[in-house]
């Protein structure tokens, strides 16, 4: 199932003009506040009627202003998890969960049990929303949307209202959801770490337009995209396989360009994981460095040099099949005489891939 969106909408002094496709898995709508992200998901849900556009989900036309078709929200089967949960305060958690399920052909006990289990909310069923924590509310909201059997799921900054521990509590559930539910998820966020962790595809919105769109691994390793994502957060996503867990607390991981040693990764030997390497944690060396403490050195080729306004240069690197991103100073780039196509070594501090950025995927 897939989603195809093309929209034009004007309100106040803001003009939105976007078009993109979203396949199975998580498609992140990324951008700063005011980039038009929520407007797009509201249009997909049918809560907003755009000036012009066409939205198709799984073969059904939800909106086509050219033919005057506008499917009302309750007939779209588009699940929506709002930033603020929006649980019905007068209903118990169980009744909230059953609300949409009842309308889409009845409450299936095994479905309810499976999703309650997936989200860890089985013990909350008799409670009222007012008695739940923020993280619990969000998980119930996700369950409620899923039980309505949507063909796509919209999540509008579902973690934005939560503090860091609550975010950490919910992220794994959303990850499992993306893998197990098999439905397209349109995930709105302005947090790079969330997007890097969850998204297969990224659509970057800026000023009401699609600035970039493509597979997450490609966009995150693209020096030209880095400024849009925020330089501080820039960094590549790297698929890896756990090879061994050593006695000294390190795990050995295989990537296409060699092997890496990380502080113990919470995944079994043989498991596929996703690493995130911040651009500022990657150093470049012309020769294989000797006598340094860093364990992780990969042979790489420069694919792209992107010099911005400031003193920094973003360097796109190819390491085997994978792409990395390094952020160095313009002075270093000149001193080393870096050019595109040049072969050299990338030094990654072994502590660089933080545990929070490693995920099973």
């Amino acid at each position, binding site marked *: 199932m897939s989603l195809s969106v093309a929209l034009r909408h004007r309100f106040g002094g803001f003009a939105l003009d976007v078009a993109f496709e979203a396949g199975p898995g998580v498609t992140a709508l990324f951008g700063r506040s005011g980039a038009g992200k929520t407007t797009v998901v509201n249009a997909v849900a049918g809560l907003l009627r755009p000036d012009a556009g066409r939205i198709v989900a799984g073969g059904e036309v939800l909106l086509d202003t050219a033919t005057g078709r506008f499917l009302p929200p309750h007939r779209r089967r588009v699940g929506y998890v709002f930033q603020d949960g*929006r649980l019905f305060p*007068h209903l118990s958690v169980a009744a909230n969960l059953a609300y949409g399920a009842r309308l889409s052909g009845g409450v299936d006990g095994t479905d309810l049990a499976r999703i309650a289990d997936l989200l860890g909310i089985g013990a909350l069923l008799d409670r009222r929303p007012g008695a739940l924590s923020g993280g619990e509310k969000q998980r119930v909201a996700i369950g409620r949307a899923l039980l309505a059997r949507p063909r796509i799921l919209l999540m509008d900054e579902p973690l934005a209202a939560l503090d860091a521990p609550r975010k950490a509590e919910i992220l794994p559930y959303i990850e499992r959801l993306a893998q197990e539910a098999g439905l397209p998820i349109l995930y709105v966020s302005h947090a790079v770490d969330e997007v890097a962790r969850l998204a297969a595809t990224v659509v970057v919105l800026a000023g009401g337009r699609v600035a970039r769109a493509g597979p997450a691994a490609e966009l995150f390793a693209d020096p030209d995209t880095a400024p849009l994502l925020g330089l501080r957060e820039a960094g590549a996503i790297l698929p890896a396989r756990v090879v061994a867990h050593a006695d000294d607390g390190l795990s050995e991981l295989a990537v296409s360009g060699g092997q890496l040693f990380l502080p113990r990764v919470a995944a079994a030997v043989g498991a596929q994981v996703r690493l995130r390497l911040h651009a500022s944690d990657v150093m470049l060396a012309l020769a294989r460095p000797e006598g340094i403490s860093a364990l992780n050195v990969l042979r790489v080729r420069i694919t792209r040099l992107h010099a911005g306004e400031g003193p920094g240069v973003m360097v796109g690197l190819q390491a085997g099949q994978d792409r990395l991103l390094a952020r160095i100073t313009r002075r270093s780039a000149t001193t080393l005489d870096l050019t595109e196509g040049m072969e050299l070594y990338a030094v990654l501090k072994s502590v660089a891939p933080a545990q929070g950025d490693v995920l099973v995927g």
Partner: protein
Amino acid sequence: MTGWLGPAEWAAVALSLKVAFWAVAGSLPFALAVAIWLARGRHAGLQLVNGLVHLPLILPPVVTGYLLLMAFGRQGPLGEALGALGITIAFRWTGAALAAAVMAFPLMVRAIRLAVEGVDPRLEQAAATLGASPLRVFVTVTLPLILPGILAGAVLAFAKAMGEFGATITFVSNIPGETQTLSLAVYALMQTPGAEGAALRLMVLSVVLALAALLASEALARRARRRVAGE
């Protein structure tokens, strides 16, 4: 108990209850519709509607009663139309109910409107994305959330209808057994030499009824706030 009030007084109490009940039951659907319209509508004419609804609160009741008499009296345009259907309202208990309903209407609309304004429209949007049609959203989300407000408004309106005097006596007069409600009976007893005791007893009864209604209305409003907070 029967010795405490005479049969005529009990008849007045029973009539008041009947009049107030029908005044509230009959006007509740209209009050609900008007309250939702005023709370949610974007129409330019809403201020005018708002003013009209509140008019009975500000007008001297005797004026309201007289306007009703002009409209629903035998020669009035509406009275004539109803008369053709065999329905007479003026000088009947149904007229008393109409007068009470008109006088209590603003109170009911205000209470329900406050409740509707307290409902987060984003909850209704959420219900729509879960597959609920607009009617179902109203029945399963909006209505349960404003129910305490509706009840509070109804109780307040009931109390007001029980005590209505000016518009009632002007519109349907003071006919024992037909239009002589509690407050009209008190008035009649006060005019009768030697009936001060009975008047006093009816007054005590009015105070008790009014106080009970007010307390019930407050309790319902508290419950409404808790319900919207989801506790």
